[in-house]
């Protein structure tokens, strides 16, 4: 295994060198860095042009300049000495200073979007694979293709116009009109009955129930002026915590496993109790407090699973932990909602919470809840637009993976053994469909670090994409090369992880 990694790293290094040379030449060819200066009427125009061409030593032909840059970059390899010299950009700012900040805002932007895309993508992929060739499958494919063919900036502009400015205007007097409520209820009904499928009678029941539930919810929103000061409230938390418990047990262990169900219900109960006891602790807690509480919830979840015991102790512990964390999450969401009214009333926000630009409100300061909401409102739109784009890829991939696996012989054997449909799907089919997925996820993360160039431009978040585009348009090689080196290294590492994860997941590769 070690020799495999060493060989792989060596080959990647060579690749990086070759590609960086080509990249440097391409950037140098792509334009004339002095173009902006030529148009300026400053008296010392000739002197400025001379200065910049010295700074970028333009008189040296491009290939030789590359080696100058390489010498600087090579110094980064010396571990201890931070002598990394990636040159300066045309504003004479050291490039090594620019990269960390750009990387930080890009990572902030894409982590949410990638996780969301993976989770939602896998769920839709599996459901549409199971409902192969049904109405649901066709409509999902159509929507996925639509998202796949929509240019990124188009989505971004629409989101900004309707979700940000539209929603903020709507907040002025947040009442949903009756026809709108009925419309939303009907659509929700259609989606739920398509997901459930099965005999016609069952689908009609599901349609009616979900329609009514949605109408009731929307009416409740209207009456309680929910959009201005939202909050889950004890009842909603209790209902959803127990809902989570049932769902998690159903999915992972099956309803028949009484011990698992008991563990889940215990954790849901604890969450409701915590809701009442921890409120004042929340008010004065810092991020450290929250992380300790999170660890505590996890430990309680695991412990409860272990204590309930029974044969499959591991399964109960897993369910306990998941239910505890999810219902804990509900508490946090509720607490954030409670600060929403305070947040949008703040002078810096002025009643228009959803932001369209940047990653934080500069003059705002408040407790962790206010700052937490601020990050949420700033990253809501970019995350949605990025998720929609990468969602299409994951859904198609998981769907075709699942369809292949479902045709395999061992699935027929599993059914012949008398396993119920859920175990066959989750334990046998999905476990095998997971293997190629791991490589896709790792490779995708490698690509996305390059910064969602267009999303960053439209939402004015200056991450890696912006750094790259701006430097490229004023033909400034040093930041472009620094961007390229960082992105390629991350991509190569991601590919390596993808191969290793392949070995980890597939015993045939591990133990040949």
């Amino acid at each position, binding site marked *: 295994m070690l020799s495999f990694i060493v060989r792989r790293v060596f080959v990647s290094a*060579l690749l990086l060198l070759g590609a960086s040379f080509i990249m440097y030449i391409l950037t140098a060819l792509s334009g004339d860095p002095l173009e902006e200066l030529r148009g300026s009427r400053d008296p010392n125009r000739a002197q400025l042009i001379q200065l910049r061409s010295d700074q970028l030593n333009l008189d040296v032909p491009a290939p030789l300049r590359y080696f100058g840059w390489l010498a600087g970059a090579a110094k980064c390899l010396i571990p201890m000495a931070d002598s990394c010299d990636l040159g300066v950009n045309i504003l004479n700012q050291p490039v090594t200073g620019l990269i960390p900040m750009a990387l930080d805002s890009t990572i902030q932007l894409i982590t949410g979007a990638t996780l969301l895309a993976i989770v939602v993508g896998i769920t839709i992929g599996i459901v549409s694979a199971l409902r192969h060739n049904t109405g649901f499958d066709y409509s999902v494919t159509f929507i996925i293709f639509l998202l796949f063919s929509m240019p990124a900036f188009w989505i971004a502009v629409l989101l900004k116009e309707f979700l940000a400015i539209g929603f903020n205007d709507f907040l002025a007097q947040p009442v949903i009109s009756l026809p709108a409520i009925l419309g939303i209820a009907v659509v929700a009904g259609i989606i739920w009955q398509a997901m459930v499928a099965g005999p016609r009678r069952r689908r009609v029941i599901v349609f009616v129930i979900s329609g009514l539930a949605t109408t009731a919810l929307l009416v409740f929103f209207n009456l309680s002026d929910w959009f201005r000061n939202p909050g889950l409230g004890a009842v909603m938390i209790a209902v959803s915590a127990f809902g989570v418990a049932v769902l998690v047990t159903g999915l992972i262990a099956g309803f028949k496993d009484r011990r698992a169900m008991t563990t889940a219900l215990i954790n849901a109960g604890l969450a409701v109790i915590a809701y009442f006891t921890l409120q004042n602790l929340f008010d004065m807690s810092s991020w450290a407090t929250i992380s300790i509480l999170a660890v505590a919830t996890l430990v309680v979840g695991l412990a409860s699973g272990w204590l309930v015991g029974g044969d499959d102790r591991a399964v109960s512990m897993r369910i306990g932990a998941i239910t505890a964390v999810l219902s804990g999450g509900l508490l946090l969401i509720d607490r954030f909602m409670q600060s929403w009214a305070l947040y949008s009333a703040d002078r810096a926000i002025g009643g228009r919470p959803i932001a369209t630009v940047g990653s934080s409100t500069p003059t705002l300061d408040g407790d962790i809840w206010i700052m937490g909401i601020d990050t949420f409102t700033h990253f809501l739109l970019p995350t949605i637009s990025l998720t929609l784009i990468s969602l299409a890829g994951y859904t198609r991939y998981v769907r075709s993976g699942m369809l292949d696996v479902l045709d395999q012989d061992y699935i027929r054997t599993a059914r012949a053994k008398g396993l119920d449909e859920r175990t066959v799907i989750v334990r046998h089919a999905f476990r095998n469909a997971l293997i190629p997925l791991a490589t896709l996820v790792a490779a995708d993360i490698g690509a996305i670090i390059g910064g969602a160039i267009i999303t960053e431009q439209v939402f004015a978040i200056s991450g890696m994409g912006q750094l790259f585009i701006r430097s490229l348009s004023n033909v400034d090689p040093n930041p472009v090369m620094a961007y390229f080196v960082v992105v390629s290294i991350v991509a190569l590492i991601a590919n390596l992880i993808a191969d290793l994860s392949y070995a980890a997941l597939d015993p045939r590769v591990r133990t040949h």
Partner: protein
Amino acid sequence: MTQVLETEKKSEQVGHSQARLIFGRFVEHKIALVSILIVAFITVLSWSVVGVGSIPGWWHLTYNQLNPLIDGGRPTMSVVPQWLGGEGVFLGEHPFGQDRIGKDYFAMTMRGIQNSLTVMFIVGILATVIGTVIGAVAGYYRGVIDAILMRFTDLIIIIPVIVIGALVGSIASTLGGAIDGPVILGILLGLFTWTTLARLVRGEFFTLREREFVEAARVAGASDARIIFKHILPNAIGVVIVAATLLMAGAILLEVALGFLGLGVRPPDVSLGRLISDNQSSFAHRPWLFWWPGLFIITLALCINFIGDGLRDAFDPRQRRFRPRRQKKVLK
């Protein structure tokens, strides 16, 4: 376990070639058929409006001709016929309206579409050819050749495509406008986007080269080139075509994205992406400047995706949806 019954057809009619069978299955895929018609219609429309080379199009305005602003540049086309209360179906002076200085937006959009399609077709053809050749050679010979070619592919994958887009401007001018922007963009993109296709073809060749009819051809004395192009490639053509359609859909979106970033096709030529980025802020007051290019981009990309989906089903038909006729006749 799909139990497709092997019914022995002894009918005497002339043999159905594999291609005929695939075409038969493809025609069943309604959406893909409609998509082909739409793409064909848009292609014919755009080339006929703008004209080719010296032959002028049937639309009387050119895309960079300044015209006096009529009623603030609002679209003069109306589609709602009189009997439905509209002003009847006619195109009017500027069906898609005008941009801020009076250039006819219908001509500009059509020119934008023409450029996008040019880029799409060039990328589609060039990337498919390069990808197929490299994939085939790597897949067939394996060993050292395969390693070298695959490392070369990795090299190309690493280079961000955006830089390629930035190059178009400078190369277009160094050639002194001999070849216009979109063709250069198409060629450049084609040279750098064939990597996924090469990988797919290579995988396909790995399996096909073990097949017995390949060994039979070797024993019969066929040269390597003949085996690759006469025997293996026709059987891998399914993968190639499906990957090519996805490549084309990707090419459109890439050209449009480059246009949005101000790279790729340069004014005075028109790129749909640049039309949107220039008129992005006109969303509230002159929405037609924003909606028309967007609409065409999405329709083109969507149709090509569906054509790809239809082709994939035609080449390896997974279990078709079974809709039994109502008990009319059960074969005895």
